[in-house]
């Protein structure tokens, strides 16, 4: 990757922006018209499809130097609503899938991502102003994070659930179950590793997600939608919106059919406002957590998995064989 930096960058777009000074910018070949590159229209990812925003509006996304990179959809309340509908619709199938199946699907995401590594390195580098090596480290870590969570899908129930030795003739078992539809405010700074670090644990346990991409750096998130769409992740399990975080988050926090909200991408004031709104239907709220010094690079714990799990405890009568002459 790092040995071919000249292949990165968006020739056409940067040319259009009138700024050609970025490293890696190919120079026009003397005597021949430079090939005009094909721009990408970034779209939302909702219900397994790639719609434009219902608002019909976009906003400019620039790199760390202020250079225009692309337009991103400016999602509206209605996009948020549609995403919740899609997420709810997908919940039954995804939460009902076997944990093994979910693990394989998450692993498939890692496989697909590995294949598109260069694209994401470029997008992360552009977005966050990182060197190629730094961006590559982020993307590699993100791929590895999918793998990490892929392995958790069929283990978390054994770690956090189990038999309870009640004092009576009852079989009693606690098992974790997904909370439902989770609104996720992706971290604002870490456009990809942070994003993956908050999405993967939510869906690993069988929840479905409505994700608000980093407001300033939405492109890696929107591209992730393309990866998910080709990774056996059923449509609607992850829905990705871009736009103004506060604007999209408000209706999600108040939405009565959203079960939980991850406030990773909210500042203090927004987090408080959303937590208050979330109380209307008692959403599970994961407040913004301190990020490790490595910017999401540390191996996570299980708290992001358990934050969106309910514990269901099932009792069933047993009966002592022969204890009183008769039994079950």
């Amino acid at each position, binding site marked *: 990757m790092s040995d071919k930096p000249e292949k990165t960058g968006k020739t056409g777009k940067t040319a259009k922006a009138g700024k050609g000074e970025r490293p890696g910018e190919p120079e026009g070949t003397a005597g021949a018209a430079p090939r005009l590159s094909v721009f990408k229209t970034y779209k939302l990812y909702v219900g397994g499809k790639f719609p434009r925003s219902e608002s019909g509006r976009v906003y400019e996304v620039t790199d760390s130097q202020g250079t225009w990179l692309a337009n991103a959809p400016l999602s509206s309340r209605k996009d948020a609503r549609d995403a919740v509908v899609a997420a709810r619709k997908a919940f039954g199938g995804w939460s009902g899938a076997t944990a093994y199946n979910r693990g394989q699907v998450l692993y498939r995401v890692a496989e697909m991502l590995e294949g598109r590594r260069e694209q994401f390195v470029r997008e992360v580098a552009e977005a966050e102003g990182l060197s190629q090596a730094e961006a590559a480290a982020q993307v590699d870590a993100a791929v590895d994070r999918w793998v990490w969570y892929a392995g958790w899908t069929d283990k978390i129930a054994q770690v956090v659930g189990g038999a309870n030795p*009640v004092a009576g003739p009852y079989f009693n078992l*606690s098992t974790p179950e997904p909370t439902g539809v989770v609104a996720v405010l992706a971290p604002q700074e870490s456009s990809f590793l942070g994003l993956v670090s908050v999405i993967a644990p939510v869906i690993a346990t069988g929840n479905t997600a409505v994700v608000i991409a980093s407001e300033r750096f939405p492109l890696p998130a929107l591209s992730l939608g393309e990866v998910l769409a080709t990774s056996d992740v059923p449509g609607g399990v992850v829905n990705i919106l871009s736009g103004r975080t506060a604007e999209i988050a408000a209706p999600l926090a108040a939405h009565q059919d959203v079960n939980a909200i991850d406030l990773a991408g909210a500042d203090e004031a927004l987090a*408080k406002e959303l937590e208050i709104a*979330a109380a209307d*239907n008692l959403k599970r709220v994961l407040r913004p957590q301190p990020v490790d010094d490595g910017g999401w690079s540390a191996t*996570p*714990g299980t708290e992001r998995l358990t934050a969106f799990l309910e514990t269901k*405890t099932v009792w*069933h*009568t047993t009966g002592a064989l022969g204890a009183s002459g008769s039994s079950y």
Partner: protein
Amino acid sequence: MSMEKPASAFEYAPAPESRAVVDIAPSYGLFIDGEFTEAADGRVFKTVAPATEEVLSEVAQAGEADVDRAVRAARRAFASWSALPGSERAKYLFRIARIVQERSRELAVLETLDNGKPIKETRDSDLPLVAAHFFYYAGWADKLEHAGFGRRTTNGHSGASPRPLGVAGQVIPWNFPLLMLAWKIAPALATGNTVVLKPAETTPLSALFFADVCRQAGLPKGVVNIVPGYGDAGAALVAHPDVDKVAFTGSTAVGKEIARTVAGTRKKLTLELGGKGANIVFDDAPLDQAVEGIVNGIFFNQGQVCCAGSRLLVQESVQDELLDALKRRLTTLRLGDPLDKNTDIGAINSAEQLARITALAERGEAEGAERWSPACELPSTGYWFAPTLFTGVTQAHTVAREEIFGPVLSVLTFRTPDEAVAKANNTPYGLSAGIWSEKGSRVLAVANRLRAGVVWSNTFNKFDPTSPFGGYKESGSGREGGRHGLEAYLDV
């Protein structure tokens, strides 16, 4: 006083538990920093026996200043309490468990007097569970590093040895006064937190008695503080800036208020709120036991139970048979003096609660559901409500949607398991559910699909300190009981 006398002459003579076994002082103070004190503004309130409306005692009424004083006391106590070796904290809790066992007869009578629930419930259910809860969590105090928390070692979290949070502000309801105290205080102390607890205004006595248990156990002052009072005291406690952890059991409406109050703070929150539990009876159910489970589900503690099975979902093919059996069974329920050992149905806890139950039952009738109660003579003083069934109820009826918190059962029918599950889940609540079927695969499949924190199959209203309890959706968040119950009080 029994309802509709069975045809026989075998009428049980009164068998009252002696109320002389417990001394009730004419007045009680707040329990702060190991001392009983008056409220800063000198206010007091009366607590009455709901069965007779007799005033039992006068209790100091905590206000904001008192709550502040209690939180400060708890904060002061926190440093040394949390620094104790877990094994020493454990021994205090074991002592409490044993003293509760020793004094359980006194406590049972006191609880029955103040709450109105039958003595057989306080004696056979509340008190044994209280002692068991302390005994269970006592054992955790020196084993927290084995509880599976503290895996995250970054970001200033506890790491391998999970740390307590600090001061826990706990607000509990009146339906299981001492048991809810145990559910709150036992895990809080085991994990090294200190506590300010506000009991409900209609049932402060057992919590104040518990202060004496703490004294006998030699618990360091300030570790447990009890501040009886009204909603304003609870609100002050929840909003206090030096409280690190809020635990509330009560109504969903208040739970939402509390969630808003703690929004944007560092306070960790657990809520155990309302419910509208579905008790689902399939046509292959063990019918006689299902009838008992239905009765237990809705008439235990006069139905004033958050996890009550207040919606009976019965498969149409056994509806008549089941309802006949249920009605026959209800005629044998004995309503009356809660201190009588043969009483099945005691008093409603307060005039206010009685008014709410009455209003909702009237609404059920007005909306066209068919109301039925066994012939039942209610005492002339006190707060009483006859066991009541509503049949012909649909999902659209108020009595099928709103938590009544009283001895009122709404009966709905279904035709298929899918329909049963859909109806059971069709509520903003998600605390409990019951399944009655002799077919294992059906039980497990339905249990899987129910969105409820506790599912009882072929039983109902069973509790155990080892078994996590808590709701989905608007029934609250977090779990009390078991290993899970530790999490709410640890920095993990």
